């Protein structure tokens, strides 16, 4: 039988626990019993792949999905997706979703009284290129209130979903913005104990990708699996 290549596991504190009581929704949803250690078999080291045919090439520009321009500050979010050894993960699906500039999601469960934007849906996807690079054009999402505790506000964030090469490399996380004053108070951002790991979720302002008179650039690299893995977040 052919030997399979398994995936290195992240350091324990570099990923969030399931139960994080200050994040109220985790209390009734976190498993109470210990997880059972699963050695990686062929079932875990394989996973779905997505080809160009499954991708809408326009889906990487969230500002061009409607007839008009969305309101808000135009930004470019780009970066590289790498494995635990820093090698690029090519042709890997990335999906994003986010609130609009006013802090409102286009979703029936979002009842925040901020306005919807008819020119902004807030979801997109793309494939990484041969060097593992990706690039989205979007608008900077707004902060929004939520019911977790009194006067709770989420820092501005973009949800990221990545597949990587295998079931074992599946990651759903959130990207934040540098200097956001809400970060120290956010129970979701702070659920990861290791500060260095947590800070990997904050994008960097980036002159290189900033386009004059057009859009600010933010850089967000993502590592799937291994000791430097990007932490998960819901």
């Amino acid at each position, binding site marked *: 039988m*052919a030997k399979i290549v398994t995936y290195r596991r992240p350091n324990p504190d570099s990923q969030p626990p399931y139960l994080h009581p200050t994040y109220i929704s985790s209390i009734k949803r976190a498993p109470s019993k210990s997880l059972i250690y*699963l*050695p990686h078999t062929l079932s875990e*080291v*394989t996973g779905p792949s997505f080809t160009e045919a499954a991708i809408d090439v326009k889906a990487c520009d969230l500002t061009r999905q409607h007839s008009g321009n969305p309101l808000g500050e135009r930004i470019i979010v780009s970066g590289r997706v790498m494995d635990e050894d820093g090698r690029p993960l090519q042709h890997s699906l990335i999906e994003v979703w986010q609130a609009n500039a006013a802090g409102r999601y286009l979703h029936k469960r979002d009842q925040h009284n901020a306005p919807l934007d008819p020119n902004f849906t807030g979801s997109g996807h793309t494939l990484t290129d041969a060097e593992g690079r990706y690039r989205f054009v979007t608008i900077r999402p707004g902060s929004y209130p939520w019911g977790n505790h009194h006067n709770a506000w989420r820092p501005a964030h973009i949800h990221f979903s990545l597949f990587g090469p295998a079931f074992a490399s599946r990651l759903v996380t959130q990207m934040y913005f540098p200097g956001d004053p809400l970060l120290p108070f956010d129970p979701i951002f702070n659920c990861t104990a290791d500060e260095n790991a947590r800070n990997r979720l904050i994008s960097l302002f980036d002159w290189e990708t900033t386009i004059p008179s057009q859009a600010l650039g933010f850089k967000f690299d993502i590592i799937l699996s291994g000791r430097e893995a990007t932490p*998960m977040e819901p």
Partner: protein
Amino acid sequence: MKHDDLVGAGTSGERVVIEGHVLDGDGEPVPDAIIEIWQANSYGKYAHPEDQQDKPLEPSFSGYGRIPTDDEGQFRFTTIKPGPVPDLDGKFQAPHIVVSVFARGLLRRLVTRIYFSDEPANATDFVLNLVEASRCETLIAKKIAGVSGKLEWNVILQGPNETVFFDCGL
């Protein structure tokens, strides 16, 4: 991107509909969960380059599905029962589907598996044998009496009947 029917034209194998609920620690439905599944085809071959077995691939079957729960916390998908795939010792695992569960409140995904009730191979499956016998039931999809091809399998996030979840790294 909902994908709840994995069976394409010409896909071989025993067609099954698997349905169930995602429930929280109070037994309340979880209406915002997403179930993702990954499985081999009826020959026990994954559509992935890491699978080097000399078995046929079927272009009509990718093996991947994504199913959101509805307002009652219910999900349902149509697939085929996968064939056996190798374990780490050159033996075969019992037919199974690997599952990720995502939801609000889950800071990380939960990883679990779906096995099939009518499989003698379950008794020797090395992953099922990692689980205490009384909890194995939570991993097995059961036939719904009187309905052919329909199986029930639930995700209980927390509590005495909690589903078995695995540590898969990420």
